[in-house]
Structure formats: structure tokens, C-alpha cells
């Protein structure tokens, strides 16, 4: 019998796609019969998705500065 602690850690690995196909089968079965585990899975998946959607962009100036630096270094290497 797998402990709740281990099951929840496995769910975290499952949410982040780090489980094997065989583990997925076992976890899917567990989720079908364990309401508390299912609720935990849904909350984790929801929160992960929220974080995934939070992305920021640097300014074009920042990107241009980096590209210019790279070109400068390339010229130094070539000369």
C-alpha cells in the first residue's frame, strides 16, 4: 500500500509529466477511486497552469543590446 505522502509526491511528478507510462496507469486508477487524491490533482494541475501562463517579455532594446554584444565579440574573435 502506497502512503498518502508518496501518492501526493507521485501526483506532483504526474502533473509535471515526469512519471513513466506504467506509473501513469497506476495513478489514473488511483485517481478514479480516491476523491481526495483527485481533488489534490485538480488543484495542483490548475495552479501549475496558472503559473505556466504567467510569462514576461524583455524590451526590444534589451534584446538588441545582447545581439550587438554578440556581434562585437564575434568580430573580436574573427580579427
Amino acid at each position, binding site marked *: 500500500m502506497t502512503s498518502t*505522502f508518496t501518492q*501526493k*509526491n507521485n501526483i*506532483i*511528478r504526474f502533473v*509535471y509529466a*515526469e512519471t513513466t507510462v506504467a506509473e501513469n496507469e497506476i495513478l489514473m486508477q488511483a485517481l478514479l477511486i480516491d476523491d481526495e487524491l483527485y481533488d489534490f490533482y485538480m*488543484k*495542483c494541475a*490548475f*495552479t*501549475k*497552469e*496558472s*503559473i*505556466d*501562463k*504567467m*510569462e*514576461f*517579455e*524583455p*524590451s526590444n*532594446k*534589451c*534584446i538588441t*543590446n*545582447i*545581439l550587438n*554584444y*554578440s*556581434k562585437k*565579440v*564575434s568580430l573580436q*574573435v*574573427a580579427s
Partner: protein
Amino acid sequence: MIKNNLSDAELLSHYKQGNEKAFEVLLRRHKSKIYSTIFTIVKDQYVAEDLMQDVFIKIIDIIRSGRYNEEGKFIQWASRMAHNLAIDNFRRNKRYPTIVLEDGMNVFNSLHFAEETVEDVRIKNETHTSLRNMIQTLPEPQREVLLMRHYAEMSFQEIAEATGVSINTSLGRMRYALINLRKLIEKTNVAYDQYLYAEK
């Protein structure tokens, strides 16, 4: 001509041979992830952009001097460097700075959105800011594992090794990070369901 579908390793190989376009593709591919890693920690656009440039100066110098270790993924290496620089900066300042952005009004102009109304953008900005602030309130070990997993794309095993703990500790920290964030989301009742999960 460099194709966008080349792998990071292939782009790095072209770049080492002097192809600047390959580097540009690599930079544009990973800029959001690396910048987000930094910005989520320092919360200041100017500082984040300075650190972003510092990270890439280091990256360029390491690659150009032939010291880049091709084992492992580029994004993990770069994000880890970004994370460490941002943490160093935070520790030097000993506080989280007030959000400082270009025009004072458009506080969230660094967020990336496409084909949305002004109102959509405003609400998403508020939602993302709220979530980012919630992440800041997590205990450092939880915040660290969350940022490493999301932005550095490190596996839990890799995070465990990098932070010197067992994988179970690493998973436990992530578990508490997600549970705590979820509680904060429920408490503040921000508009996640409506705006983050709307199908485009």
C-alpha cells in the same frame, strides 16, 4: 539561412561557427523564459533587463571562449545562471524593490499578450501581478523549487541534486508551494477561471 525548428544544440553549433543568426534564434526562443525567471525574483523591469543582459554576456563569453559544456540542456543552464544572478541581486539588496517600469503608467508593459482587448489585457495584467506577488510570499525553499521547475525546466531529480536535498524533499516543497498558492488564489478570488482558462 537558419531554420527556427533547429534544436538548441544545432543552433549552438552554428553559433560556434560564427553564425549570428543562430544565436538570435536561440535568444528569441528562450528570452521570455529566462527573463521571467529573473523578473519574478527581482520585480523591477530595469534591474531584470540589466541582469538579462548580464546573463547573456556570460553565455556569449562562455560559448565564444569554447568553455560551454554541451552536456545537458541549454535552457536549463541559462535559466540556472539567470536564477542565481537574480537571487544574488536580491540578497545584495536585502529586500524586494518596488515595481519600477518605463512610463509609470503602463506598469505591466512587459507582459506578452496577443489579440486581446484592452480590458482583457488589464485583467490579465492584474491577475498575473497578483499571482507573481503570491509566489513572492512563499518560503524561499518552496519558491526556489517552483522557479527552477517552471522557468529552468529542471526535473525534480535535477533540482534535488542542485539544492542538495532528496527528491522527496524537492517534491514535498513543490507540493506545499502549489497548495499554498492555490489557497492564496482561492482567498484573493482573482479572476483565474474566467481569464486564464478561456479558450482562444
